[in-house]
């Protein structure tokens, strides 16, 4: 029997939501300041409105009793509501700018930004105000690092663990959730300084941009690369830069973003051996090699590239972008749609598999793939070995762990949910007359929070398809649990006793 939530439950949820709204409202001060500095008064006014609404709702929430009683279901509802409401309010500057076709398009890009997907419906991006461009990319940073993690750092309070886990973070790196959250943001800040400096210097000294623009590009590409987002400040994505060095620098950040923060911690503490023995590291290296080989062979067969260096550079970058869930492209969507056969398959599989658990990347995640493969191999060995033989069931993931049937089942269930999500999205796309391969590609890209496109995602696409992709992006980012818990909470509120 479901228990109907009482007023106390709503107050606890409202208090936590208040904390998150205040944090996002304060984050909005950065683009506001940017707009003021650049005398971009129209974006300035829209940021002021957005911040006002966030702070007002935030303070309203904070006036409710504290969150010491925040339990598991409250936490899940808070997480789901955060990912539902923050993009709605965060889309206001987009709506008011006139660069988006309407509220749904603006919401689409806000969700895409926050979920670090990178699919975009913005129009005339090349004339967009820098402060709005910055807000698009800052959404990647907020979503990738975790708004809730930021709130955990700013506000101490109960229920930290449930909020942390609800936002699809699987492991605590340090003993407390707050110290883990602080570590995640410390890693991000170090990468921010190093990444922006390197990208900015490359853009300035190698690409020949003027200094302020060089660091503007560096900052935008850092946000989108390290947070495996995929937005870019110009309409031709990373292809705009026409530079292998710039692509390589962005690539390093993409890999860093797709690594779990647990592995970052291992690297920071000098435990390189732990990194190499890690199940996720081994899995992702294998799947990357496999999808890369598929794509390169596929490209060679199609004859699109006449030289091995061109084929390798373009193939490598696109697969890296797909597997890390970033979504940067150095070829146009139109050209990507001609990558048929094995190249298409390689990219699609790379997107679906995604990066590591507890990273900023999306997709099924290497941990689940590794566990699933290990469980299947163990089952086969049990069948083949003599009766009574002992089959090893351990794996390395932040220390030695035991592969229990429950763990394998959980990994397989979430993996299957992802497959179902991809297929439902593809089916709806096909219902609108989009060819199977393109519908599947775009659906996987949305559900796995990648952002590569073969041209289906555009302002003229059907509204229902936009809403489906919005749902896919959100479900994919939250890894289903928080969204299902929220639906359960709503059901209990209506039908519970």
């Amino acid at each position, binding site marked *: 029997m479901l228990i109907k939530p009482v007023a106390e439950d709503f107050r606890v949820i409202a208090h936590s939501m208040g904390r998150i709204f205040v944090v996002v409202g304060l984050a909005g001060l950065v683009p506001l300041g940017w707009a003021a500095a650049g005398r*971009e*008064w*129209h974006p*300035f*006014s*829209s940021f*002021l*409105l957005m*911040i*006002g*609404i966030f*702070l*007002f709702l*935030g*303070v*309203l929430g*904070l*006036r409710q009793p504290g969150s010491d009683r925040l339990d598991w279901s409250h936490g899940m509802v808070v997480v789901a509501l955060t990912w539902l409401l923050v993009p709605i309010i965060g889309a206001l500057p987009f709506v*008011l700018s*006139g*660069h988006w076709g309407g509220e749904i398009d603006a919401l689409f890009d806000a969700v895409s930004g926050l979920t670090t997907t990178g699919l*975009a419906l*913005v*129009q*005339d*991006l*090349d*004339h967009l*105000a*820098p402060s709005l461009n910055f807000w698009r990319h800052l959404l990647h940073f907020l979503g990738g690092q975790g708004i809730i993690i930021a709130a955990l750092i700013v506000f101490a309070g109960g229920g930290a663990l449930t909020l942390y886990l609800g936002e699809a973070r699987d492991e605590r790196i340090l003993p407390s959730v707050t110290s883990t959250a602080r570590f995640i943001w410390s890693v991000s800040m170090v990468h921010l300084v190093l990444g922006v400096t390197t990208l900015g210097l490359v853009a300035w000294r*190698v*690409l*020949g*941009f*003027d200094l302020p*623009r060089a660091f503007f*590009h560096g900052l935008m590409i850092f946000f989108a690369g390290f947070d495996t987002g995929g937005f870019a400040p*110009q*309409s*031709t994505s990373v*292809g*705009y*830069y*026409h530079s*292998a060095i710039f692509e390589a620098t962005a690539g390093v950040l993409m890999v860093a973003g797709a690594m779990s923060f647990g592995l970052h911690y291992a690297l920071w503490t000098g435990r390189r051996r732990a990194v190499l023995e890690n199940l996720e590291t081994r899995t992702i290296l294998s799947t990357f090699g496999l999808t890369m080989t598929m794509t390169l062979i596929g490209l060679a067969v199609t004859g*699109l*590239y*006449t*030289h091995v*260096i*061109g084929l390798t*550079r*373009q193939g490598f970058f696109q697969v890296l972008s797909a597997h890390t869930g970033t979504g940067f492209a*150095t*070829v146009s969507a*139109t*050209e990507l749609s001609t990558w048929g056969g094995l190249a298409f398959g390689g990219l699609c599989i790379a997107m679906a598999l995604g990066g590591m658990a507890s990273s900023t990347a999306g997709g099924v995640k290497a941990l689940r793939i590794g566990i699933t493969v290990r469980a299947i191999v163990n089952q086969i060995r049990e069948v083949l070995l003599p009766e009574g033989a002992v089959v090893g069931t351990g794996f390395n993931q932040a220390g030695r762990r035991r592969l229990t049937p429950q763990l394998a089942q959980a990994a397989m269930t979430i993996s299957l949910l992802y497959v179902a999500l991809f297929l439902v999205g593809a089916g709806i796309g096909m219902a609108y007359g989009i060819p199977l391969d393109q519908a599947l590609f775009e659906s996987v890209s949305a559900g796995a929070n990648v952002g590569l496109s073969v041209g289906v995602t*555009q*302002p*003229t696409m059907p509204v229902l398809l936009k809403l489906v992709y919005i749902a896919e992006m959100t479900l994919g980012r939250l890894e289903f649990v928080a969204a299902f818990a929220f639906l359960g909470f709503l059901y209990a509120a209506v039908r519970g006793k």
Partner: protein
Amino acid sequence: MRRLLVLCGLLVLILAPSVPAVAQVPVSVLITDPSQYKGTVTVQGELVGDYGYRSDGTVWTQLNDDSYAREPLLEGGERTGGNVGIGVRIPADLVAGLDPPGGYRKRGPLVQLTGEWEYHDPDRGGESYLDVAELVLLEPGREFGEGISYPAVIIGAAFIGAAGVLWLRRPRSG
């Protein structure tokens, strides 16, 4: 005599060495079917983004051939989808004196570029771009304004004020 002149004129036209025609291609077509346009092509559009001055004496930038190149959204242009552009490599001396490239509140110079369409250039790691030999300025760049939204400022300030009052008058424990 008149007939003789016409005949001579026709002979000159027929016997004159043929000059290869340069195809003027819309960028959207060039992107859709890039492999069909090997060789010299002419494109028109707005230079946007940045002028990247490379050490080899060339400048890299982007040429957009879309409705916004004529009339950007903020100048009252219609929404017609995303931008349509290609990368262009121009000798630095051709860029000298041009207005800054297009961006926020700036319509970049409208130009006609003629050059080699390098599709998946093996010398540049498979990049596709136009290697420009000739640049004709069709229209200089221009700047335009965008006003403040007073209703948004007033409502936003009211919300912030209300949030401040609520925060100051919040119930305090103890």
